[in-house]
């Protein structure tokens, strides 16, 4: 409600008032680090992961350090009112504890909590007992908006029983893209040679999770319905919709308290810096420390059976945007490795060999090798069969 007004107001005042937002480093920051961060929701009907990490101080993050301290050695399990415990199946290197006890037919009306015995600080944390919420139905669709030059993924959900009300979405989007120039050779350190297999430098896939916290409540509506909510807006010139795009959306129904927690977290991180920003403030999640009441834990563990949907869109008919190509750089096949490696250092890659003329053609790596943009030439398992493999 208020957020749109506030954002809009800021732009107006920002422009009229010739305001500036400049990078700035405040001195004398206080650092509090090492708090336990627990993310994930318990699901009774499907596998789920709980990820445990530790918070960082503000100075280190500000200076660009991106290391997340995962906690892999905690003793984590789910417990119900009857004291049955469910242990995780595995732990990943990213502190993700994978659970799956759907096969054990857990009681859908029961209450469950998460228990963590941390090896790092020796504390025991427990979430509050929560009852499972149902996921509700969800449909995904997309729309291409020519006027705004935007591609939008829309969510439609409806709960006739009016129980859902608080919606939270996360997604993972996967897309493939191709390099400008199809290359069939590479520089092996000594000379330019042809690739052995079908080119792995032409088509790459990349995945990214949602970075925004997506929330919507329908308490003010006459029906419990989400209609055409734009969960993702991609401008036309974005690499994601250059070839094929696939998005998997997970819809979680939250309790009012869980919703409030996530909404506050979102406001504290995203709705800041505007003229009318509310003062940031903290609220506690539902995890408390059993042995030390003053210890602080971040996160809210809900119990819900999230629903998942995938939408895949072939975007090849959308207008393409190409960078202008530079002229090719032509090197002799007999060039010294040293000279060729200099070219590589300048971000050039070979793409074609002409044996007859005894030369290799080079151009910018970004135009030749799709891996330059961080993708990998590995086709995901869910990729539709009809779409090209390479």
């Amino acid at each position, binding site marked *: 409600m208020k957020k749109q007004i506030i954002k809009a107001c800021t732009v107006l005042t920002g422009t009229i008032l010739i305001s500036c937002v400049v990078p*700035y*480093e405040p001195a004398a920051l206080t650092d509090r680090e090492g708090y336990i961060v627990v993310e994930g929701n318990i699901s009774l009907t499907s596998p789920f992961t709980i990820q445990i990490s*530790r918070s960082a101080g503000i100075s280190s993050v500000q200076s660009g350090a991106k290391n997340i301290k995962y906690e892999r050695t905690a003793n984590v399990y789910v417990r119900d009112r009857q004291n049955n415990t469910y242990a995780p199946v595995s732990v990943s290197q990213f502190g993700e504890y994978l659970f799956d006890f759907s096969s054990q037919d857990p009681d859908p009306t029961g209450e469950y909590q998460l228990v963590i015995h941390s090896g790092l600080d020796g504390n025991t944390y427990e979430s509050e007992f929560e009852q499972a919420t149902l996921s509700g139905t969800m449909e995904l669709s997309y729309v291409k908006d020519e006027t705004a030059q935007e591609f939008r993924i829309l969510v439609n959900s409806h709960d006739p029983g009016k129980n859902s009300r608080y919606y939270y979405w996360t997604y993972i989007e996967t897309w493939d893209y191709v390099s400008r120039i199809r290359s069939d050779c590479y520089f092996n350190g000594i000379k330019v040679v042809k690739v052995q297999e079908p080119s792995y430098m032409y088509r790459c896939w990349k995945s990214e999770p949602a970075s925004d916290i997506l929330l919507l409540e329908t308490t*003010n509506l006459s029906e419990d319905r989400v209609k055409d909510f734009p969960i993702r807006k991609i401008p036309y010139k974005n690499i994601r919709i250059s070839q094929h795009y696939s998005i998997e959306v997970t819809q979680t129904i939250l309790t009012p308290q869980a919703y409030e927690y996530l909404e506050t977290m979102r406001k504290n991180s995203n709705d800041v*810096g505007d003229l009318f920003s509310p003062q940031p403030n903290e609220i506690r999640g539902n995890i408390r420390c059993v042995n030390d009441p003053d210890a602080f834990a971040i996160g809210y563990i809900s119990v819900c059976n999230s629903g998942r949907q995938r939408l895949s869109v072939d975007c090849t008919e959308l207008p393409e945007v190409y960078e202008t190509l530079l002229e090719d750089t032509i090197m002799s096949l007999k060039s010294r490795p040293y000279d060729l490696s200099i070219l590589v250092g300048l971000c050039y890659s070979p793409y074609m060999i002409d044996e007859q003329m005894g030369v290799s053609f080079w151009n910018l790596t970004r135009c030749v090798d799709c891996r330059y943009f961080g993708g990998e030439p590995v086709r995901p398992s869910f990729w539709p069969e009809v779409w090209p493999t390479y």
Partner: protein
Amino acid sequence: MRPLPFLITCLCIVCFAGSPIPARTQDRQDYHFRYVTLDSLVKVVEKKTGYRFYYSKNQTDTLLLSVRSRQEEIIPALNRALQEAGFFLSPVGENGLAITKGQGLLSSLPSEFYKAGEDNKADFENGNDIITANGSQVADSENRLYTLGNPEQAEMKGSVRLTGYIRDETTSQPSAGISIYTEDKKYHAISDAYGFYSLSLPRGYATLIIQGFGYKDSHRLIRIFSESSLDINIAEEVYSLSGIVISAEKMENVRNVQLGVEKVRADRIRHIPMAFGEADIIKVVLTLPGVKSVGEASGGFNVRGGASDQNLILFNDGTIFNSAHLFGLFSLFNNDIVSSLELYKSSIPARYGGRISSVLEVNSREGNKNKITGSAGIGLLTTKITLEGPVVKDKTSFILAGRTTYSDWLLGLIPENSGYNNGSANFYDLNAGISHKFNENNHLYVNGYFSRDRFSFNNENSYAYQNVNTSVKFRSILSDNSTMVLSAAYDRYNYRTRDTSLASNAYDLAYKLQQISAKADFTTRLGLHHKLNYGVNAFLYYIHPGTYTPFGEASLVESDILEREQALESALYISDTWEINPNLSFELGLRYGFYSALGPKNYYLYQAGVSRSEESITETVNAPGGKFIKPYHGPELRLSVRYAFTPTFSLKAGFNSMRQNIHMLSNTTIISPTDIWKLSDANIKPQQGWQAAAGLYKNLFDNTLECSIEGYYKNISDYLDYASSAKLLMNHHIETDVIETQGKAYGVEVMLKRSLGRLNGWLSYTYSRTLLRQNDPSVPNPVNNGQWYPAAYDKPHDVKLVGNFKITHRFSFSMNLDYSTGRPITLPVGSYYYSGGWRLMYSDRNAHRIPDYFRMDLSFNIEPSHKLTLLTHSSVTIGVYNVTGRKNPYSVFFKSDGHNNVNSYMLSIFGCPIPYITYNIKF
């Protein structure tokens, strides 16, 4: 006899003179004087004839007369002899004869001596001629001696009172704030908003000095015997430069019993450089010591550590709830119609109540009663026009003013892909006033104000708000000693926001607040030492806290309407300005307030001892219409004392306690478009505060430099602050989301001010702290664990300089300089990865400060040419706001930009120098 008083006596007496030299019976005797002095001759003649002679010894010292006549002809003979010597003999009264050199005395009144319409009664008695005037004399001349009152009372002891009106000579409009005082500066009065003054002074002769900003200094000679009245017309100052002119305001500093009162003239407002050249009263108020704001876009202001909603803003006796247009960029008040501005920071007179920090009273002026005039102005962003004139000459006048902005062109400059360049933002406001004079004693004033702001962006969000203020005021002079003012006002503030970004969720949210008030105020002078001010106020509030309705056909929004709130607030007050002697005065005021929310209303009651939440509701109460839901009442003390050691040095101290029943709820730092006002009720108590202050005031260099130092301590309780993640809009139990907070503020203000002269302005330094604390034990997670934390407008050091230098009559140069410590902000203490991105962790509220604030503005004013015969007069102001271009930070914040980066930024509002030019024309 001393020459001057003698001469004056002669002049007075001759005014009343009437008859020609009468014939008198005399004893038969012949006179033969040879070269005798007048003294001797007079002694003889007086004894023999019974006449009395009046003459100046100085003039007649060297006179030697030779007169020879028969007894019955002595007077004509003397007359001839005197004439030969160059003297005149004139009859004075029945028995008197005056001997004057050079010319005779008039023996009858000039026909135009008294103005038409005045009632005069001449009473001759025993040689003492008296005139008792029933109406006021109008004193236009500096050279005449005005005799006032009943001369029979000439020998009585004690002081007498002189009252009357001071008016502008040309327009007949009353002049407020004009100082009138005796030459020895011991007795002093100031004209009020109606031009009315009341001065007590000893009987006898006096020279009254009349001074006011914008007017020529003048004086009047009077001889006052008893209570009387005298109206004075004063002339506008055309050349106000060369030499140093003493102004009325300077005396104010030392003489006024009240502490912490700031008055600003409308003229001065134009000269202070402003952003975009928009003269803004609120921004002028911000240049006064003790007044701060949280940032440049803030429409509100904070006085001595009080929150923005703790200021009572009165415009013609109507209350203003939202004090700015368009986020504080443009002033709510049209500068052209404002006559004066008074800010009470410390001693708040008992007649004001309802807010605990300050009272800002702005009055519009009456229309010109003599001819139709007007003015117009064009600026970068706004245009305004004013028209005023008489409806019935000298009786009724009107004034109309309008203002609008056309900032759409700026919005069109925004890049297209931001999506906001199709937006529009505008406001307009209208002022109308009529003043009517029934007779000298009864006046009626009707004023209205209407403003509307509207802005919308790319068809997705739009927002509009309106202010309506109407008031009627009737002022009557009941007797020589007492005045009555009756007034009634209706004020309304409402806004509507509309969001159509998601069709199925499109809504309209509306809020409305209405206030109806009635006031009766009486001022009575008891004797010479007491001035009583008493009266009663009543307010009726109606608030529609939120009306949430769907907008558009596709909207699934369910209507939700919060129940209307209403309340009754009333107060009785009495205050006495007690002048024990010219050095020591007290102002003792008591105000007793009564407040209650009224039914019909359904409200919740909560469990005691636990913080209010939905879970702790114990019952729902249905109060029927008209029932007093929860009355609150209590006294408020308004005390101040002034002791003047010398006429230029005084000490003042004061204590005030205040109550406030209506609160503004906001969880943003500055006043935002969706802030709401909430009435106290069964769950929310009124706020209370008290302030103790003391100060020293000294005028130096013959009253040209005013210095003052004032310190204060303030305590606030039950101030409403919001709980973490409070939902303040459309909240059916908003009392669960607000927390009562305690506050304290203290500080010292030092000020140097030079009001007139070539170089004028003021320089002030303030040290102040404002701290808040949530110390309610039932609150589970109080802010900062229940410790004291600085408020958002806590800026310990503050230096302000406002200066104006007149190069010539037409050209002047103004400078404004502002330095203050940065305001507190909340910065994160940690960061964690959650839901795909870096999130920020905050801890103590307001534990850090943004960098200090410094800004300097300059402007150059070209005044109208002083040819009085031109049809129109135009003035131009050219200036630069923020000359140094310092990017004064408004806030510092951290933001995560997606997956991996948390960056810190500084937001400044005016980040570079902004030049402007405005053009005003008067016709």
